[in-house]
Structure formats: C-alpha cells, structure tokens
C-alpha cells in the first residue's frame, strides 16, 4: 500500500472530505473541509473524484515524505511549497497546479501561509482512511474519523488509495503541469499577499432572530467592520467588533455552518464545519453558502463586512459557480 509519512505535522493538519450528512439527529454535524471549493478543485487537479479525502492545512503545513511517487495539488491558502528529491535537489512547486512528487521525495509546505488560512493538499488516489458515519473527515472534538480521529503527528503513515493518473515521462523528476483552474474559482485571489487586504465582503441572509435585534444593532451589523480573532477554529470564526446588543433567546435551536450567533458578549460567532448541531444564542444572520469557502480563508486579524442578499440571489450565485466547476472538471477529464 502507498503511504505518505509525516515528517512534521504543521500547525493543524487533518484529513477532510465534503463532510457527513444524515446524522444531525444524533448530534453529529457536517464537519468536513471548511473551504469545500478548494477541496473539490484540488481533487480534480490530481484526477480524483472531487469528494476524495485530502489534507486540510491550517496556516502552516506539514512536511511529508512520499514512500511512492504521486501527483499532488495544493489549493486554497497561498503557501510556499518545495519538493526535495532523494538526491537533495529542491524544486519550488506552485499552488493550483498539479505536480509530480517522485518516490522518496519530501514535500515541505511548512512555511507560514502568505495569504488565506486553509490549504487543501490532495494526493492522487485520495487518502485511504476508514469511512466512519459515511465520511472520511476528522471530527477532532469527538475524536473519530480521519486518521485516528485526530490531527496529524510526526511519524504518522497515512495510506493513499490507487491513483487513476499515469506517471509523467520521467518519474524521477519533479514535474509541474501548466494546467490550472480559473482565477475566479480561487477562494484566495491570485496575488493576494496577506491579512492586511481590504475588508472581505461576506454575503448573508437574515437569520431567524434578525427582527428581534434592536434596529440600531441591525444597522450596525451591516456597517461596522468585524475582525477575526485568534480563538477562531474549525467550529467557528469568532469576531470582535460592535459589540452588538443581543436579545435573549429561550430555547436552543438548529444551527448550520455559516449561522452567525450573537452571545451576550455582543461579539458575533460565525459557525463553521465542526459546529454543534444546536445553539442557544440568537441568530442574526446566516452566511450564504457561496461565501463559506472565502470566509474559511479569513485568518485571525482579517476584517469582514456583511452585506445582505436574498434567497434567489444566493441560489443563482451557487448554480453559476457549480456550472463553472463542471466546466473545469470537464477540462480536466483527461487526467482521470
């Protein structure tokens, strides 16, 4: 069986896939990749089905030794990556392009991300971890799924499935494919250099308790910029700003990834993939699905502004993006 060996794990590297469905009644939320679009595209670039399991890297990635040669793609956050072959030669490899890692070479993506927060590292054949509750993603809090229910550690050997792509003409050398994906699908814009970009605009729909907030709070929500705080994680993106005056809620209710709750502190929390399935704070708004991948790239210090869109617009934006992804997938069909 093919494997990659973890030489250094990076800040927080987990196995993720599109997430679980069907277990909310048991209290199991979706989990899975935070930036689902980068995840799907990384898989397509290496000839995998788009729902294959891949590594999700947070801010600073792992060093991996490839026991067998593989096609690899790195998407999402911009991270400097280098492949060092067993004879000591090193080659820089770009994001958003498939590259070939020869056997016994080491891929180092442990530099701190230049832009964005999370990168997907897909390996042709997919990460071959057991399916638990219908998914291969790691649920860190409950300790199941992924690779042994936890983030990567030094010395781990993660099994890789069978690749459908054929090797390049010279399998002993690093090869970089010119083919990539359209810039407008990249959740981290090409050329973005860091967290000091202009405030990100995140499109939201009003939440079920929106009308219960005071008028001044509703207006503040759409005008003041919010800043992502360092205690953000896979369960939620925590914001400082406002603070917003929040009404009391009496009962816990359903929440989704993207649900923006306002706890008594007045500092909103945008729930992410690993969220609990219920929450007891008023839901002022919900991030449109189209913007969840971009929001997942907001690192601590990033500034956000919220704007309102309607259900129809949210759906048409998504339909349009699905079309674009289908076109990309068709263009990469020769890789499969």
């Amino acid at each position, binding site marked *: 069986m093919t494997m990659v060996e973890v030489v250094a794990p990076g800040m927080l590297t987990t196995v993720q896939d599109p997430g679980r*469905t*069907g*277990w*909310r*009644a*048991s*209290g*199991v939320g979706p989990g899975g990749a935070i930036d689902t679009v980068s995840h799907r595209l990384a898989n397509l670039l290496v000839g995998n089905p788009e729902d294959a399991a891949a590594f999700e890297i947070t801010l600073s990635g792992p060093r991996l030794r490839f026991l067998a040669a593989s096609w690899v793609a790195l998407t999402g956050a911009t991270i400097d990556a280098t492949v060092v072959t067993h004879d000591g030669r090193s080659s820089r490899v770009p994001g958003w392009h498939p590259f070939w890692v020869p056997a016994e070479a080491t891929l180092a993506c442990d530099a701190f991300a230049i832009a964005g927060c999370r990168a997907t590292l897909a390996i042709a054949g997919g990460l071959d971890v057991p399916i*638990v*509750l219908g998914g291969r993603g790691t*649920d860190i*809090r*409950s*300790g*199941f*799924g992924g690779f042994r229910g936890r983030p990567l550690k030094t010395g781990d050997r993660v099994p890789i499935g069978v690749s459908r792509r054929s090797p390049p003409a010279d399998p002993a050398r690093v090869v970089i494919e010119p083919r990539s994906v359209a810039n407008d699908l990249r959740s981290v814009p090409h050329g973005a250099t860091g967290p000091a970009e202009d405030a990100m605009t995140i499109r939201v*729909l009003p*939440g*079920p308790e929106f009308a219960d907030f005071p008028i001044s709070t509703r207006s503040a929500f759409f005008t003041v910029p919010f800043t992502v705080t360092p205690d953000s994680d896979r369960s939620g993106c925590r914001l400082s700003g406002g603070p917003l005056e929040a009404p009391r809620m009496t*009962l*816990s*209710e*359903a*929440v*989704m990834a*993207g*649900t923006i709750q306002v706890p008594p502190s007045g500092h909103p929390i945008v729930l992410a993939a690993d969220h*609990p*399935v*219920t929450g007891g704070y008023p*839901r002022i708004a*919900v*991030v*449109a*699905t189209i913007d969840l991948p971009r929001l997942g790239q907001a690192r601590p210090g990033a500034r956000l502004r919220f704007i309102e869109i309607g*259900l129809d617009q*949210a*759906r048409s934006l*998504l*339909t349009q*993006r*699905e079309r674009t992804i289908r076109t990309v997938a068709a263009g990469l069909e020769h890789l499969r």
Partner: protein
Amino acid sequence: MASSPLTIEPLGDACLVVRLGTTIDPATSQRVAAATTSLAAATLPGIVDIAPTFTTVAVVFDPARTDVGRLGAGIVSMLADLDTATLPAGNIVEIPIVYGGDDGPDLAAVAAHAGLDPEEIVRLHAATDHVVGMIGFAPGFPYLLGLPAALSIPRRSTPRTRVPAGSVAIAERQTGIYPRDSPGGWHVIGRTDRVLFDPLKSPPSLLRAGDVVRFVPVVDAPTARGMRR
C-alpha cells in the same frame, strides 16, 4: 387535539426550519416527532439531513440543486394532516447512575438550593421519566425534559472547563448527560458508565428524541460497572 398551524422559515440558503410550537410541552414534542417521522420517510428531492429540536424540525438540503420554494411547498403539503395518533412510542432506556460523591460533585449544592436533603434530590430525580427533547450540544448529548420543579436550578455562574464523560447534570428544568469530557455549565449530580455516543454504531447516539430515560441508582458502583462491561 386540534393542531396549530405550522410555519416554515429559512435558516440561510441550505436549511428550512419547520416550526411546530414555541414552548416545550408534550403536544409540541409529539408534533415534532410526527413531523420528523414523516419527513424522514419522504422522498422530497434535495433533502440531505433532518434534525428535530424542542419545537422545530430542521430540514437541510443541497442548496445548489434544490428549489427552496418547491421544497417548502412539498413540506407543507406533506405535513398538512400531521397525525400524532399513530406515533410509535419512544424507547424506554434505563441509565444506571451513581449519584453524589466524586461522581456528582454538585449534588450537595443542588440540595442546598432546593432546601432538600441530597437523598430526596436523588429520589425525585430517579423517580422521574425524563423525555429526550433533542440531541445537540455535542454528538449524543441528550437534552432531557421533565426535571421536577423542586430541582430546578440556574446554570453555574462559572462553567467548569472539564466535565468528565458520563456526567449527569441538571440546569433549569432539564437534565443532560455528557458523552465525552467537555466544558460544561450545568450542575453535575451523578455519573453513568453507559456509552452515549459510539461512532461505529448506526445510529451512533444511544438516545434519540422521544425516548424515555429512567435513571437507576447504583449503590455498589465498582461491581455494577464490572457486570455491565
């Protein structure tokens, strides 16, 4: 019983919430259970998950492939004649529990708050049929309804950073059981060794909404634990 009209509200662009009441009461719980059963048996296209809460059923769908208007209309027509009469009764699940001591460090404080002896707290808690209102907070965590009014107590002013797995805790008019070590703000009165959540089982949660939990006090804890393993 005449059923009040249901309402449907969006929760973002990937979830519709069917509201069957606004307060926790047996009639609402019945309607939630009936709606959950109907929707789970339905073949409405686009639905990927269904989750009951105290007063609602959340219907999660694939937003890129679902016409939300059509889905909402489908749900309304499906639930128009909600029949709670044919509902299967929830399972009765006995949960062995050790009350007080190291397993229930807040039992004395709860007793003091209620103005009762700890023994009376235990008697009242164990004599109650606790109905699972919903599973939430963490995988397998049951919100149990029916805590006697005499035991009602506000949450701890300072949540604990770590509550051990199996802890049985109360707050307001509810009891919860922590499936895993986690932070928690409820008053811990006892502990069970039943496994509340096992990801290798299907379903993974020991309990589901509508089940009835009876706590069975265990006196000789080590022996009882050994026997059940």
